[in-house]
């Protein structure tokens, strides 16, 4: 006899997950893009990827392509990559440097502040307002050395949302500040093209029930992960202690590189991790920071960019950071492999009613409740 999962109450140890179609429905994914990624602050670039005036890059936020640039005064600016004339993409490559942003169709030309400054015969059309026909602006912030964008018409306060979420989880923002992330430098970046729904990746990152099974190297370095409790499982995140014999957060537990000079004593020999909704994971260890940014592409595909950040002198000296990188690169591959093997089963009739969360995963129910609330119940 087949037990009807939808009718069977889950009680005690187990809590329900989202139903299977939450991970496979294209209409639901479009709603998530609209209500979550196109409304909240998204982390899109390392700020030092744009240095000189006129440096620009095109990034994806939700379903939009956005130009991020620096104006003549090196201030960050962001615009929809849509010409206000007939809608052609203004920037047709991923990155470049230019004195103006010029559409290749009819040469409508915008300065680095987005103002329409030239177009053929524009001087004969004095009624065309240069500002209101400028590139449509996107809210931009720089925090922890990253560029954050928000597409909302009326962007939520960065302080109350992003900073508020971090301080709620970490106690105070000071504890993340002590890693000096804004002054670190990317020592390695790896991009992962993951064939899984973005929520599976967040859920995976939030729990460590899987750690002992799929992360042998991580569990060697942080033995307490074998118990299944993630750094972010409790009300506040806790520092997960390195094993006694472990010298550093490396693939073989050998010593890492120079310790970040301003970390607090309780941050030494500990691993902290935090999720900043909707698309950032930050992992902090004494000598480096691992920073993930997600870009959902479809209901079953998500791009993840992972930066390993070290002290600038470590990167500039060409110090070998490969053992540090290899540890979390393996963790990433192990996690994304699990997510990719989960995604195809989300459309199974066997999972229509969803699955179960064990006690060390119960905090994921809070993420599910949040998603459902934002999507309108």
């Amino acid at each position, binding site marked *: 006899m087949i037990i009807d999962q939808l009718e069977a109450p889950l009680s005690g140890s187990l809590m329900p997950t989202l139903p299977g179609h939450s991970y496979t429905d294209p209409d639901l994914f479009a709603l998530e893009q609209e209500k979550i990624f196109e409304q909240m602050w998204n982390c899109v670039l390392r700020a030092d990827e744009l240095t000189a005036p006129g440096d620009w890059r095109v990034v994806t936020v939700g379903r939009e392509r956005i130009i991020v640039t620096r104006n003549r005064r090196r201030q960050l600016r962001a615009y929809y990559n849509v010409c206000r004339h007939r809608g052609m993409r203004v920037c047709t490559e991923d990155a470049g440097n230019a*004195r103006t942003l*010029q559409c290749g169709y009819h040469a409508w030309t915008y300065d680095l502040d987005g103002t329409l400054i030239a177009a053929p015969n524009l001087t004969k059309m004095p009624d065309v307002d240069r500002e209101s026909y400028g590139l449509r602006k996107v809210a931009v912030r720089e925090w922890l050395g990253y560029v954050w964008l928000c597409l909302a018409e009326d962007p939520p306060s960065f302080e109350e949302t992003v900073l508020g979420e971090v301080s709620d989880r970490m106690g105070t923002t000071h504890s993340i500040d002590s890693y000096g992330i804004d002054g670190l430098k990317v020592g390695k970046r790896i991009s992962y093209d993951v064939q899984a729904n973005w929520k599976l990746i967040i859920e995976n990152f939030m729990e460590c029930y899987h750690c002992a099974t799929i992360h042998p190297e991580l569990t060697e370095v942080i033995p307490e992960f074998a118990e299944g409790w993630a750094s972010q499982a409790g009300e506040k995140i806790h520092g997960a202690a390195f094993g006694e014999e472990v010298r550093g957060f490396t693939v073989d537990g050998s010593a890492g590189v120079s310790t970040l000079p301003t970390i607090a004593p309780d941050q030494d020999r500990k691993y902290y991790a935090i999720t900043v909704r909707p698309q950032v994971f930050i992992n902090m260890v004494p000598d480096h920071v691992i920073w993930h940014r997600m870009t959902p592409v479809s209901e079953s595909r998500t791009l993840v960019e992972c930066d390993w950040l070290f002290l600038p002198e470590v990167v500039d000296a060409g110090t070998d950071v490969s053992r540090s990188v290899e540890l979390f690169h393996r963790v990433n591959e192990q996690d994304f492999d699990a997510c990719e093997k989960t995604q195809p089963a989300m459309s199974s009739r066997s999972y229509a009613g969803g699955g179960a969360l064990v006690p060390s995963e119960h905090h994921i129910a809070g993420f599910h409740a949040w998603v459902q609330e934002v999507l309108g119940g």
Partner: protein
Amino acid sequence: MRRVCALNDLEPGEGLRIDDTSPPIAVFLTEEGTVHAIDDTCTHQDASLAAGWVEDCRVECPLHASAFSLLTGEADQPPARRPVRVHRAEVHDGEVWVEVSTAAPNLPPGVTLP
């Protein structure tokens, strides 16, 4: 000479279009602090040079990137071929004064004086 604007109206590295002359002129304050005046209209196609990028005493037309010398008016590369007129500019007591050239302007096709 005629007064065209106050020095304070100019931003270093930027131009200002003065359109109560015919044809309009563009006044520039360079990052180095010098003031220059040239015809505002590119000689290749109707575009305002006051909106162009100023560097090394040249202004780059925003439409097709020919750069005109603020000293001689010559274009450095096609598509513009003819020079713009250069007007003598001086600053007195914080005011910018310009003596408009009496030479015939090199206006682009389709642009005529009223």
